[in-house]
């Protein structure tokens, strides 16, 4: 891992004659209104949120670079991340300024044309962090002139986009209890929607909304139902209290339906399923929440009672496609469990599900999309070979959908 990180430098490649966002060196950085975020696809020269647009297509409308000239690209600049650790960030580009987050919970503002720094915000962290998988941050969100970032000590911070000054700093959950935060928040109107990590440390997952101006919490929706709520009986005894189901990858938003879509991670403990018998709702699921109050509108669980750490921590891609002769509003999802799914995103109805990578754990999916398990595939002291691995058919790596080709693209792990 260390070797990998050492060679990671953020590079900007450009054609020799590329035009930069600001030809005369500025002035730059217009306020990013909700209107601009809604229409982010109309600004292909910018990248205004984690997945580019609210529907998370991660598709660039830029046409200057294509398969016939990609070989002519040359290095324009390199910015070296000073802190050597995980680098899993998606930078934002706003009117010629690039915002890059770095380990452990820092952000720099760079001139996108030269890679040179405007300012840096270093977040102070306590010594007693509890993090499973490296010191990591996945990016910021922007609204107006303020950036929003998750931090490893499970705070959400607002940072002035022009200076790096701290605007507010809200504790989301106590880090000493195993909570941490790595995912880029998602802006929905005037709300900062943000998830939580710590599924390996006995947390109870949730998704939060904070007021962008003040940092006060608007709502919290737990990803594991409490004792009086439907679904709680899918956890043996008290196991729901520490059942994980974190929310560590940024979701998507449909402004017409006013629904926030978010994936949830593995139930905990990861591989030891006997202590939490049942389906373990809503782990390894996608949740559709009311954009106003966070109420659960529908859910779809990809892997009931997961015992292989197959988090449903993927970017939900929203698209309108023709399905059996009619246009449908769908969600496309290549899951860590090695199945690809198309769901109706208005209702959560299961439309299509097929393996896209080698899998040996399910005979297939039933008509509701529930896996039909191959018996005796549980982890055991003797060992049990299962595909996909605990790494999954895919992982948090961003997929994309091209409206031009109608194809969905995904990074996958598939043994040769």
């Amino acid at each position: 891992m260390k070797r990998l990180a050492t060679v990671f430098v953020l590079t900007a490649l450009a054609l020799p004659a590329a035009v930069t966002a600001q030809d005369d060196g500025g002035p730059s950085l217009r306020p990013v209104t909700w209107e601009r975020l809604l229409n982010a696809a109309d600004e292909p020269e910018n990248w205004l949120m984690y997945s580019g647009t609210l529907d998370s297509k991660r598709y660039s409308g830029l046409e200057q670079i294509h398969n016939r000239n990609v070989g002519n690209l040359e290095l324009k600049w390199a910015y070296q991340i000073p802190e050597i650790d995980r680098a899993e960030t998606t930078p934002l580009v706003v009117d010629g300024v690039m915002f890059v987050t770095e380990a452990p919970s820092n952000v720099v503002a760079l001139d996108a044309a030269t890679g040179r720094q405007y300012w840096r915000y270093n977040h102070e962290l306590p010594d007693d962090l509890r993090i499973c998988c490296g010191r990591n941050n996945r990016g910021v969100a922007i609204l107006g002139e303020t950036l929003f970032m998750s931090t490893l000590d499970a705070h959400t911070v607002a940072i002035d986009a022009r200076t790096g000054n701290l605007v507010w700093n809200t504790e989301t959950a106590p880090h000493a209890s195993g909570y941490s935060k790595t995912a880029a928040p998602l802006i929905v109107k005037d709300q900062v929607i943000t998830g939580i990590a710590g599924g390996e440390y006995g947390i109870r997952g949730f998704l939060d909304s904070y007021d962008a101006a003040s940092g006060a919490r608007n709502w919290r929706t737990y990803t594991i139902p409490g004792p009086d709520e439907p679904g709680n009986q899918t956890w043996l005894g008290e196991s729901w209290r520490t059942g994980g189901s974190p929310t560590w990858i940024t979701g998507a938003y449909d402004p017409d339906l006013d629904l926030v879509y978010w994936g949830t991670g593995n139930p905990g403990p990861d591989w030891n399923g006997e202590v939490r018998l049942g389906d373990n709702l809503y782990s390894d699921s996608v949740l559709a929440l009311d954009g106003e109050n966070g109420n659960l509108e529908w859910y779809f669980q990809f892997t009931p009672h997961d015992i292989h750490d197959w988090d449903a921590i993927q970017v939900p891609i929203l698209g309108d496609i023709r399905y059996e002769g009619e246009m449908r509003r769908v969600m496309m999802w290549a899951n860590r469990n090695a199945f690809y799914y198309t769901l109706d995103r208005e209702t959560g109805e299961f439309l299509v599900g097929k393996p896209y990578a080698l899998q040996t754990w399910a005979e297939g999916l039933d008509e509701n999309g529930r896996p039909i398990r191959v018996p005796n595939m549980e982890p055991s002291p003797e060992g049990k070979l299962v595909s996909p691995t605990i790494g999954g058919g895919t992982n948090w790596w961003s997929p994309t959908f091209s409206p031009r080709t109608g194809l969905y693209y995904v990074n996958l792990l598939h043994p040769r």
Partner: protein
Amino acid sequence: MRKVLFVGLSQAALVAALVLVAGPATPARAQENPFDTLIDVRMGERVFRAQCGRCHGRDARGNDETGAPDLTTGQFARASTDAGMFSVIRDGIENTAMIGISPRASDQTVWQIVSYINSLNLDPGDYDLPGDAARGEQVYAGADCSSCHMIGGEGGRTGPDLSTVGSRLDPDELASSLTDPDAEVAPRWWTVRVNRADGSTVEGLRMNEDTFTVRIMDSDENLWSFMKSDARSLERIKTSTMPAAENLTGSEVDDLVAYLFSLRRES
């Protein structure tokens, strides 16, 4: 290329798995500082000046050029406990210029440096200030300070953020920064005037500069970035853009100082 990336990703996934199995690393040293008397502080200071001053400054106020942080604020990114600071000084911080102290130094010496660094944090209780913080807050609001300064995310961007200025500057320094702004102007707050090839001029506060480029913020808070090779000439004006508090009375300055000194991070 694609192959390499593929392998890299699977390695990352594997490492994630291994780390998971191994659990978090817990530091072995976790104890109270046994050497924290006044004489320990003084001995710590001597070693600090000799071994750490070249990067952190002899007064421990930090140095932009070496990237060594100010150690007088009581806020530490890597050392929020005494034991944490001990490890930072003993072992250094991996992959940064912060190298550990010479292995010949005893644990006692390291603890004494910890005591010295802790002693630098200004304790408001040590000062008997003539001014009144609540009145100072009103003076601040009336004197248009917030057109240039932010406190808690509110205010302008053409001066330093004052949200925690009380843990950075002592009352004397605060008073002199009000009455004599030009006395000490950090390079971040110099004015850079860029005379461009087309004859136009852009002027602003110096946000960042290297051999080939410079970035500034103009008085309308716009960000600019220049290649020096594109500019006809470049001027640096090292006086402060902050007006001296000339029309404030002595007691208003005292009140302002009391207010500003109260601005510190609650710990």
